[in-house]
């Protein structure tokens, strides 16, 4: 539904807000310049520094980080998949799988043609999922992925083992840089996925006696493969 819903109380609600604020409804608002207020933590960090920061953080978020190269990537992934119990693999339909000439035995793919039920069922039955990261945030050990027709939301949450391939040049220091880049796209009116996921390691919970349990509703294990 793209037409304005007349019965959603919008006007009366917003008028009440304006009256609480003691003024008319504003038509234009300037955002505060928060960038100038934010401490600059980037400084003179190099690419190698970022990798060191990422490695250290991965330790804290219970995520294995494996260094590989494009040449041996297939072997690295095959070993990883076998070490985590083998089983079926699902990947996104990312074109980088073809670029790096990757394929997995008996694997399935999230695809637009398969539709909701089939894609969810493929993800639910897969033991391992392999995806490519769009951005990587060193400080928090985070990968950023976006939903697309060839990469659904549930893909990141249903399999037990989560593998994200990280290309070095996609590493930035922290969420500030990724949020700014994404917001530039939004402000420019470019389409973005309906779900933008910042994922930092496997799922976890401390709801029982504040004791950390790694692996709750989402993946039980996460591995980043750096190339």
């Amino acid at each position: 539904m793209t037409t304005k819903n007349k019965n959603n109380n919008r006007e009366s609600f917003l008028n009440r807000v304006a009256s609480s604020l003691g003024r008319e409804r504003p038509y234009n608002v300037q955002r505060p310049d928060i960038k100038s207020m934010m401490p600059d933590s980037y400084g003179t960090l190099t690419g190698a520094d970022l990798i060191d920061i990422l490695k250290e953080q991965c330790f804290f978020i219970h995520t294995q980080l494996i260094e590989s190269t494009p040449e041996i990537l297939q072997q690295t992934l095959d070993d990883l998949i076998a070490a985590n119990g083998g089983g079926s693999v699902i990947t996104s339909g990312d074109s980088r799988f073809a670029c790096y000439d990757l394929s997995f035995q008996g694997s399935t793919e999230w695809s637009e043609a398969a539709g909701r039920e089939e894609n969810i069922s493929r993800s639910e039955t897969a033991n391992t999922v392999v995806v490519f990261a769009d951005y990587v945030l060193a400080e928090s050990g985070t990968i950023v992925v976006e939903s697309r027709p060839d990469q659904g939301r549930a893909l990141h949450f249903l399999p037990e083992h989560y593998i994200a391939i990280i290309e070095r040049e996609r590493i930035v220091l922290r969420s500030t840089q990724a949020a700014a880049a994404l917001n530039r796209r939004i402000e420019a009116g470019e389409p973005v996925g309906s779900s933008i996921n910042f994922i930092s390691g496997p799922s976890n919970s401390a709801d029982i006696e504040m004791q950390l349990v790694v692996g709750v509703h989402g993946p039980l294990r996460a591995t980043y493969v750096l190339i």
Partner: protein
Amino acid sequence: MSLKTDKREFGERTADGIGNTFMRSAVSSAQDSLKTRRLTAATALGDWEAWRLVGQTIRQHTLKNLDFYLNQLADNIEARGGHIYFAATKEEASSYIRDVVVSKQARKIVKSKSMVTEEIEMNKVLIEAGCDLIETDLGEYILQIDDWDPPSHIVAPALHKDRNQIKRVFTEKLGYTGDESPEKLARHARAVLRQKFLEADVGITGCNFAVANMGAINLVTNEGNGDLTAAIPKTQIAVMGMERIVPTMEEMEVLDNLLCRSAVGQKLTSYITVMGPKAPGESDGPDEFHLVVVDNGRSEILGSEFNEALQCIRCGACLNVCPIYRHIGGHAYGSIYPGPIGAVITPLLGGYDDYKELPFASSLCGACTDVCPVKIPLHEQLIMHRQNIVKEKRTGAADRFQMKAASRLLSSPSLFGKVLRLANPGSRMMSKHGRIVRGPGLIQGWVGVRDLNQPVKQADSFRTWMKERQGGTKQ
């Protein structure tokens, strides 16, 4: 669950909390660990005070222009094919949600953690409508299967239970046969709830922040249940308090950093997602997306002397440092919002009639104010509540009489001197071994939980001593 979680009097509730030694040890160890984790994560960010100032600036700017940003949000949600509904009251909010669920002929609902859905009593309304509603956050799920035990902390709702209690509930209600290890309990819940996700018709989530220029909502979680709730069911309903909005992802990023570090001491939680209605070509996510914006008393706080309370990002850091929360626990507040922020906002949302005691459940030490990532002057707001409550003569007649007497006594040096001379002989009946053990009114309240020395004899008093040694002036 509604805002109110306990119908008993405040005194009964606190006595219950203070007497519950298990709960008190669980709360104090949780507080200690969360305090340390928060401090480590805040220090790691570098210049925490500068970040707090950015957080405060963002929240104040957004509140000052709330109507503008909500309007922008509504335009963008509708442009993406979603629905937005503005609910003035909790009844409007929960009936809208019920109507959506009924129109989808949905029965199976999965839900991720949301405080505002508790506030609007949504679960009750949906269950009465015949829905099979499942809380999927591990802590909330534990409370649900334990016959809807109320939450006792904003972030860790089942903080008051230990592993043995949880195991007992799992065994009774889920036929669980394992031991009490948190891993095994969590793994069992995962298996039970995975099936619920796959079968659900509707997913209901809260909203940490709506992002106005995207027409999207931001969820900050660790377990992955929020994302599954927004991925698998064909309909998603998200519910937000009207003040939980940011202009863009840039402001969201700052607040998420403050939130994760303050709440659980993580740099970022495992899953931070910005989500909206499913886009064309995508396979999962909601075909139908509804966002319900809830006022329920907030517009009366907006622009009032308590305006800054609306800056709250629900991190729970103020609970984790509060000496009162430590001793009485979350349930004693009788509100889904406990701790210092609960003592500020519960009376605003639920009225002084029911919650006039909460602002007094504070030592005014100000630890809450110091730790708040968006700089809400919490203890000052508690004092403002106390002033209102006294002004409106809502304290008991006996309290008022004693306060009046104390004020007369303390403002007259000659009267004070006379009473001081009588204090020792006058307190003899109430004392034992140099300590007052019982007394009227406020004195009993104090000596019930603390020591109070019996006033010394006139001849031994400091004033006499001073006069003898330095020849001080006669009062």
